[in-house]
């Protein structure tokens, strides 16, 4: 067969939405028979059920404002990190509006750092277990996740369906909430099940499957609208908590399959189209704006450190 080339719709700076990393999460246990036996897998066309009257999308952004060196005279100099992060929600009913924005600034460092006040705001101290940028970054991500949960908790009863950007981990307890994953580092399905993903038409989903890595959840794939340049283009993966019954998860899958495709973005408007949904893109822009001008924040940090 002659070589066939498809140009990915995502901007190269964002990587590739479907990347396989062989060897990662090797101990994945997949059960594809939860909704229908895997032998009978075929694309599921969403039914004509009730549609979600109101949706909420939740996302967070993080930015490293400056790397720093902390010196208290006793221990060796430690590497720390000043970061701003924010989480918020978009309510999409008749109109989409940004809601419940929370902005935080933090100083992440090993040990017990002290609060740090600047013209651009006060940085809360967050102690990290050990040295190294990876740990600092992980601590920041953890804080951001907690902030997203805080925002989501406030909206819990305000929407028929809550879509959280990223995996559901740590948020399984939220009602009618699904995780929304744009990139596919691992292909959890193989054989007939994987062929079903490739066969999805826009708006169609796969049957549910359950899988376990470090934690367990229900998941399914959905194809958004957009040009079909290759068999995985426009594919997103959704997650629902393992604690829910299969019927409850199917209801969420149905609801989200009906609701989400209309929010898919167009390639000329978003470098990560169609997976980066319009409300989430709008929310991210707003959140980044609320973080403040990076050069101003950096200047404030330098002035305060003097």
């Amino acid at each position, binding site marked *: 067969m002659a070589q066939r080339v498809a140009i990915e719709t995502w901007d190269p700076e964002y990587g590739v939405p479907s990347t396989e990393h062989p060897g990662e999460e090797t101990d994945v246990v997949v059960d594809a028979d939860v909704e229908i036996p895997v032998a009978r897998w075929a694309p599921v066309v969403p039914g004509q059920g009730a549609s979600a009257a109101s949706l909420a999308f939740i996302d967070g952004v993080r930015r490293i404002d400056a790397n720093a060196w902390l010196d208290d005279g006793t221990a060796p100099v430690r590497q720390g990190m000043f970061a701003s992060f924010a989480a918020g929600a*978009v309510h*999409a*009913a*008749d*109109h*989409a*509006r*940004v809601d419940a924005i929370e902005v935080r600034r933090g100083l992440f460092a090993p040990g017990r750092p002290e609060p740090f006040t600047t013209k651009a705001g006060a940085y809360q101290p967050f102690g990290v277990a050990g040295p190294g940028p990876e740990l600092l970054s992980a601590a920041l991500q953890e804080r951001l996740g907690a902030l997203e949960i805080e925002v989501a908790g406030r909206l819990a009863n305000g929407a028929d369906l809550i879509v959280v950007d990223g995996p559901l981990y740590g948020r399984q307890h939220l009602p009618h909430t699904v995780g929304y994953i744009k990139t596919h580092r691992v292909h959890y399905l193989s054989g007939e099940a994987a062929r079903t993903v490739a066969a999805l038409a826009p708006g169609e989903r796969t049957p549910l499957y359950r899988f376990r890595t470090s934690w367990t959840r229900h998941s399914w794939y959905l194809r958004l609208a957009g040009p079909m340049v290759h068999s995985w283009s426009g594919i997103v993966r959704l997650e629902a908590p393992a604690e829910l019954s299969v019927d409850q998860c199917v209801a969420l899958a149905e609801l989200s399959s009906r609701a989400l495709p*209309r*929010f898919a973005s167009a390639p*000329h*408007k978003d470098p990560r189209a169609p997976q980066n949904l*319009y*409300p989430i*893109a*709008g*929310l991210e*822009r*707003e959140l980044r704006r609320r973080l403040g001008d990076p050069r101003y924040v950096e200047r404030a940090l330098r002035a305060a450190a003097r």
Partner: protein
Amino acid sequence: MDEDHAVGRVLGTDDATPLSFWVALAPEQYLQLDDVVALERQLPDGNTVRIYGLVTQVRARHEGARFDSDVFLIEEGILPAEVSQAAEVLATRFEPEVFVPPLPGQRVHKAEGHDRDMALYFDGMAKRLPAGLTRDDEPLYANLEFLDGSRGAHVNISGISGVATKTTYATFLLFSLFRSGVLGGEAINTKALIYNVKGEDLLFLDRDNRDLDDANRERYERMGLAHGAFESVDFWASPRRDDIVAAPDVASRQTGVTSYFWTLAEFCADGLLPFVFADAEDDRQQYTIVIHNVVAKLRDVAAPLTDGGITIDGQTITEFDALARLIADRLQDETTVAEWAGRAIGQGTVNAFIRRLFGAVAHLKHLVRGDVPNPERHRIHRQAQVTVVDIHNLNDRAKRFVVGVTLRRAFDEKERAGVQRPLLFVVLDELNKYAPREGSSPIKEILVDMSERGRSLGIILIGAQQTASEVERRIVANSSLRVVGRLDAAEAGRDEYGFLPTVHRQRATILKPGTMILSQPELPIPLVTQFPFPSWATRASEAASIPSTGDPDDPFEGLG
């Protein structure tokens, strides 16, 4: 400053300067064009500067949208975005005069009452002349000191015919002058001379307007004006052609109009001949020297008869064409030509003069004559407060003659009187015809003289034209008050309208009848002004009743 009335805050994404700045509007608030706003800025030295301004532009946009088509996503509830509104303010005044920009974030509120008077300099106007209303029917004023000669004088009005309502606004200004009490005790002696150049619109100034509705009555009241008609008006119209009794040539009005003409005796004694020639003073024209010689000769040799006729060398002349023939005979006779035309005048030059003189005869025959008994009854006098001279039926050359002669007389009288008060207002439309930018003529000289010396003589020109670019610069430049109605786009872009900011130039192309842009010396920004429907009739169908004025020829009328 009342913080509850803040409409928004100065925004910081555009430069704020002492001349102009943008205001972001708070939710549920709005500003519209021409709104007056005020704000305060504290200076580091503890002083407070109050900044006043006028809204000249208002914009609304989506924040959060990056593409034009995002509006559809936003309206469908897919993309989150906010509508933001902002208004551009041009500063009118700083109190005290510390020219600092307002700071982003400062509250801006709508200026009302005293603040509004401050913003528009009404507080410093000792004599305020109501000049119209804003869109929300708040009165706007002009400073009388810039109209009555104390600090400036003259009004110039530009705008497209039919839409710009130039004459109506000029008459409204007169009405306001006479009715507002701004002239005090002088109002009774202040006079106006109006030329009716188009239709018979101005022949009903003395009658109430039947079509005036309550809303417009209220608008007059808001300006402190008692609505109604002009109280004391004389109407003068040209006589019908070939009419032996010289009945006035008007169609819509039967009574109260007197016809005017000049006697041959006046024509010779007062030297009116130059006004027959529109381009008499054009230096390139050789024959102008002939005109001046003939004028001198006529003054010399013409002896008056009782009914305005003359005798020259024993020959009785009662008609203008007979006079023209006599002049032509003398100029063509080799024995008299040197005496009448001057020495060393070529035959070609003499012929050019004669050709032009005969060209005018047909148009002026009924205006210069000696064949009607009691000609003094037809001599325009300005006894009434308002004198309307109708010239709309006349040919261009005859129009120039009438305007030129009457203006000259008014000017001479004022000059002779030697006192500035009482004032005489002269309303003249189609200035481009009488004082064109190019060339020179006797009328233009008078008008330029009037615009330059009228301020001290007490003769105030309210001139109007379609296009200021075609009118003598000095006349426009000497006008303190400049008014613009609807302009066409090409005209609005010319230098003559440099006093209009860009936005006002654009707006001038879409102004509706009844709306004018008024520029006065004290205000750095022109005001968009509306004036109410005339409370005097502007056509026969609007005239409420027969005027109560008696015989228009009664010189004691109105003196009670």
